[in-house]
């Protein structure tokens, strides 16, 4: 029996009343995101996203394994999102809730199915060896909008990640350790991001971006649009909820494009900063390795 934390009637009614006057409880505009912060860990492939009071940590890892029998020329790419009680005591380990299933499905469609990561480049020996890239998403704090934060974290982690270098010599595959050769980045095709709209009111006529946990309890419908900065849409998911006017939905999509361009710029900036920071450190690390040999 899962636990539930239900907000009071006052809170729910007030959130709606305030929205009807164009007010949000934290003073934001209806289409404004909370302060977004992205940072990388010391190891390659670790991305930490803070969106207001929501925090998501994504870690990308890779290992050599056998490819699937029906896809001998492709590598394996999986995204794991297991919510723990750290997210909220309402979640239990090994008991997927609707939130978890939806999150995992949306990330799957956005990042995997859209071909953001070139799985053919993960193949090492056709039918025998390939890379299995895995991204673990850990939600450290849940204050709404897990989808957008998780997607950004996953994409950031994958673009930051470096897999060990390999070489093929007369049928013998050599995988180099990080000490022998610098790891190489993944073959990345495009960066998709998710933008989730929440709808309020009997006619679902109030559209709001980046809902907090409280706003999510009050909303009558939500729509997640995944696209990249070129305007190529990966998926649009509106699962149930009050019907929304089609023209309004188109407007939401165009605002989403603006936000995605902002995300993309932020990610590029942060990656460049991280690279610069590592260049000084990376150089020293190489020296250290050579000395010890």
């Amino acid at each position, binding site marked *: 029996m899962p636990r539930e934390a239900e907000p009071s009637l006052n809170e729910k009614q007030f959130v709606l009343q*305030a929205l009807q006057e164009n007010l949000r409880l934290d003073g934001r505009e209806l289409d404004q995101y909370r302060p977004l912060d992205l940072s990388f860990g010391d190891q390659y492939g670790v991305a930490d996203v803070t969106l207001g009071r929501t925090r998501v940590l994504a870690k990308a890892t890779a290992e050599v394994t056998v490819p699937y029998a029906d896809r001998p020329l492709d590598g394996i790419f999986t995204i794991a999102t297991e919510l723990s009680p750290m997210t909220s005591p309402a979640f239990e380990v090994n008991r997927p809730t609707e939130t978890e299933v939806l999150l995992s499905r949306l990330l799957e469609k956005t990042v995997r199915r859209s071909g953001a990561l070139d799985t053919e480049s993960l193949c090492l020996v056709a039918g025998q060896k390939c890379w299995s890239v895995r991204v673990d998403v850990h939600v450290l704090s849940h204050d709404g909008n897990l989808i957008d934060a998780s997607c950004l974290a996953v994409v950031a982690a994958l673009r930051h990640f470096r897999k060990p270098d390999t070489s093929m010599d007369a049928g013998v595959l050599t995988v180099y350790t990080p000490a022998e050769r610098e790891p190489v980045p993944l073959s990345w095709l495009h960066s998709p991001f998710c933008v989730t709209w929440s709808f309020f009111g009997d006619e679902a006529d109030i559209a709001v971006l980046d809902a907090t946990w409280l706003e999510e309890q009050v909303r009558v419908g939500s729509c997640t649009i995944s696209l990249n900065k070129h305007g190529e849409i990966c998926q649009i998911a509106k699962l149930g909820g009050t019907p929304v006017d089609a023209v309004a939905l188109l407007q939401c999509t165009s605002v989403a494009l603006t936000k995605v361009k902002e995300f993309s710029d932020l990610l590029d900036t942060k990656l460049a900063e991280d690279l610069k920071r590592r260049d000084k450190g990376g150089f020293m690390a190489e020296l250290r390795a050579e000395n010890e040999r």
Partner: protein
Amino acid sequence: MASDHLFVLPGETIDPALVPTHKKHPLRLGPGLRHIPPSDIVPTVAGQLITNPLKNSMWVEFNSQRYIPTTGDLVLATVTRNAPEAYLCSLSAYTPAATLPHLAFEGATKKTRPQLAPGQLVYARVALAHRHMDPELECVSAATGRADGLGPIAAGNGCVFDVSLGFARRLLMARSREDGGVGVLEMLAGQDPEVVVGGAGGGGGLAFETAVGRNGKVWVGSESAKTVVLVGRALQETDRARLGLEGQRRLVKRLLREMR
């Protein structure tokens, strides 16, 4: 009255010289301390040890987020459902429900008792809190039979904001600005000469009312939704950013500018 700032960790020994003594009153231990017979007093949390020689009491001052029901506390509860003879109310998320008897209201009889809907807010007092039992609430003083400001809060009026327990305690102090260092409510109500609000309330400030629950919940009610949001943001920001009085003044001025 308060002793020097003595920082304690759980399990530390307290210098017996610090323990107050009194000719008439027995020593009273407040939160954060436990008594190991015959004469050991040991802290159970990390905080500041405070002694009050006048009332012969001592406790550990600390801040936390999870409310543990204590008899006599004023709390803001949310009705979850109606049970025979009582309402089941939630004091905080993921904790057992507290019972509020149907007749624990001022002048209530079986026919004239207030009807509370699930989700409604109630300002009540903890009548019974024991670790082996679910807590019990009351909206009327057992001694006088009067409500003294307790009772249901009308639905559709205002909003509830979460704050830390230490901040709620400071708000509930008789002189919250002098003793607790919290002046935001006075500033917003126009009672601080250094902050000019220019609102509709008496004294040139904003018009609003509040109910503070020791369980970390503050209800803010007003005719204007903007006022409610403003007061709520001021309270939460003061709590989270740990602002002093000067910081609170700057915060109030900034919020008033933003929300004009």
